């Protein structure tokens, strides 16, 4: 529990054939990184538009 990071937890669950559990963690991480990236891209896009307008 102390040195376990999320990807390792997925591996552990996969080795126990707990596909549902592994998928649940994976889904949370996927959605989180997608939203984070989308946010960054939108900020970048807006700042570029701002720079072009100025």
């Amino acid at each position, binding site marked *: 529990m102390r040195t376990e990071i999320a990807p*390792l937890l*997925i591996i552990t669950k996969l080795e126990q054939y707990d*596909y549902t559990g*592994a*998928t649940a963690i*994976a889904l949370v991480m*996927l959605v989180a*990184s997608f939203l984070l*990236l989308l946010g960054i*891209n939108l900020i970048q896009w807006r700042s570029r538009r701002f720079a072009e307008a100025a």
Partner: protein
Amino acid sequence: MSPGRRSPGNDPAPVRWGLTLTALSFLALFVALPLITVFVQALAKGWSTYWTAIREPDALAAIRLTLLATGIAVLLNSLFGLAAAWAVTKFQFPGKNVLITLIDLPFAVSPVIAGLIYVLVFGTQGWFGPWLGQHNVRIIFAVPGIVLATVFVTFPFVARELIPHMQARGTDEEEAALVLGAGGWHIFFRITLPNIKWSLLYGVILCTARAMGEFGAVSVVSGHIRGETNTVPLHVEILYNEYNFAAAFAVASLLAVLALVTLAAKRLLEGKVRQDAVEVPEA
């Protein structure tokens, strides 16, 4: 110069030396030392042990598989990356931000998840699992799965490298060519491609390095069958878990050499890549 105002060059000597020393010792401790350790450990039991470890059939099979997966992944991702960068930078369409985000996703998400995705799609309990089983096609725990995982993980490298350069160049030259009557392919091969050739090569190098070193994604889909679905990084892990340290470090040193070659190539190309961006003709 007014008192109290400092320029980067004239900080007090202790500050300059202190910062330099801190940075250098950090690099030595966390980068140089482990790198040297790999080679020292690999050769600890002499050259003959080193050669035996590398020329062992399982190791050779792992090297072959890594080269195969890397070759396919780099080829596909050069084409896809080029197409994606072209679409994103030369055309306007709705949902572009979502597309760019999707291109970046393999960077941000853990490679283990990339492997899991393919297990869920192509595995025995996955979407296409039953169909693939009936037709006797093996993707997961076989070579195709390893190639797929490698392709996924290395997808952003070429596209990400090209997009800023193509964005900086804009579409003026292509438009000029179009006005002068050039066709689509003609424009691509005579204008677009020559403009980005160094960036493309740079992206290919980064893609190659990552493809050869990929562990997490490949580990999930490979099934660790020695001599069949074992790539070089997985082989290192197996040897290490068997307490066969000299062999593990010997095989790892191959990857370390690859990293050094990549760095050298990157260094050589960096100047050229800057040319791609700067060499914009006068408007």
